[in-house]
């Protein structure tokens, strides 16, 4: 697996990946739906898969002493690593926002554990749709990305829309609770607990979702004839 990951990083990595990772700086834009920055990470993953296809990665890998299942797992692990790097960078931006940004985000979810939790859910959705869809054929990266992107944007609209609505309808008990506990950095122990549980649940969802995506991808790619 180490050799396969080395192959992913040195042969399959698209140069624009670093530019897309840099878009985490969007978290410093005032009043912005920050989950949008995660979509660009999904975009970068798509470019890596597309570049791999164009460079004949499947046939090169076929010449190596690895099974198709191992090849798929390595690609999925690369996706996980890439998303994890983005989450670490997002956490850094959230920390930076304490001193660099005014509190409360009118554009959606504010910097905090809740933003990271929503990002994890976004990546789980993307992985669950994109990976099995791509490995059904082993080459249709475009349609797999389109399906994944639709799922991601639906989630962005729901999550960010919910937070905008909570700010707009602050007097409504449910939204007030949501805003106080989920939006911005938590001020109380209860709010920390709620965000902590939210983040933990999202982390679990991301892990289980990606494992399921990997399992389905392996199953589907086993049926594909490498041409």
């Amino acid at each position, binding site marked *: 697996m*180490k*050799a396969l990951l*080395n*192959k992913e990083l*040195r*042969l399959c990595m698209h140069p624009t990946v670093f530019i897309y990772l840099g878009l985490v700086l969007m978290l410093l834009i005032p009043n912005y739906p920050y989950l949008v920055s995660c979509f660009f990470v999904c975009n970068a993953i798509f470019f890596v898969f597309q570049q791999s296809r164009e*460079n*004949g*990665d499947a*046939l*090169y890998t*076929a*010449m*190596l*002493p*690895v*099974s*198709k299942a*191992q090849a798929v797992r390595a690609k999925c692990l690369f996706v996980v690593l890439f998303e994890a790097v983005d989450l670490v960078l997002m956490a850094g931006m959230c920390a930076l926002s304490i001193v660099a940004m005014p509190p409360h985000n009118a554009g959606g979810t504010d910097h905090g554990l809740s933003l990271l939790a929503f990002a994890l859910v976004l990546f789980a959705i993307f992985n669950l749709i994109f990976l099995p869809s791509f490995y059904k054929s082993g080459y249709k990266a475009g349609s797999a990305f389109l399906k994944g992107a639709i799922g991601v944007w639906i989630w962005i609209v729901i999550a960010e829309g919910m937070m905008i609505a909570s700010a707009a309808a602050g007097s409504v008990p449910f939204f007030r609770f949501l805003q106080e506990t989920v939006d911005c950095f938590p001020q109380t122990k209860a709010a920390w607990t709620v965000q902590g549980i939210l983040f933990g649940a999202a982390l679990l969802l991301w892990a289980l979702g990606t494992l399921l995506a990997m399992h389905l991808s392996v199953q589907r790619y*086993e*049926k594909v*004839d*490498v041409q």
Partner: protein
Amino acid sequence: MNILQVEHLNKQYPGFRLDDVSFSVEEGSIMGFIGRNGAGKTTTIKSILNLVHADGGSVRFLGSDLWANETACRKQIGLVLGMFSYYPRKKLSTIADVTRRFYADWDEDLYQQLLRRFSLDPEKKINELSQGMRVKFSLALALSHDARLLILDEPTSGLDPVSRDELLDIFRTIIEDGAHSILFSTHIISDLEKCADYITYIKGGKILCSTDAESFKDAYRLVSGEAEQLERYRKQLVGYRAHAFGFTGLMPRDDAARATDLKIAPADMESIMIYTEKEDGHESAAE
């Protein structure tokens, strides 16, 4: 001992069927796998390596089930699928460095020797290489991890005659120790005349024969005669070409022995393949 044993391989595609393909490769030998374009050579090779899922059959490598022990078996197999056309903007040195990490038995000295022998500059990028040089790079990678079996799909396509000859010499050197073998698919039959110990001939997804190279050639004779003799021998001819002065064709050895009024010559592999592949058994020079 058989290093590779393929038994009853089947694969159904719309419009093409790999039909009950069986053959074996002995240790210390070169097996030429011949057939025209689209005959099923690459599909067979990919099915052997589980890259294409066979509908049925089995493949044993050194006695063990290759599909069940894929990773372990594949470490001892060197595979070349045509010329190297992957990652065109990467340097040879980068690709080699990535590849070597998959093989515990990677022989760096041998790899460097092969680079020098093939005049390959490791700092060049793949897209800076000619077709022939790409094939050579592919072979250098495949030969550098002490593979017991080399499976080469059209390895000499795109190579100049001198490089091809050089490569065939390398193949002979590889199998000299009796422990290494080569399965070599090609439609450049002259290459096999020079180096193959055995021939497996596939036509339309079916194995026509799998035998040693001498028996393969000895099973047929090239015959020629006058136009009026053609009608008499038409049924015995595997294939023939009619021309203004008569005909030339291919006939099974035993039939040729009885055709005492025809001119008879030993058959070469290329003639056997050409006459066997004629769709309707014959071709007229006037057509």
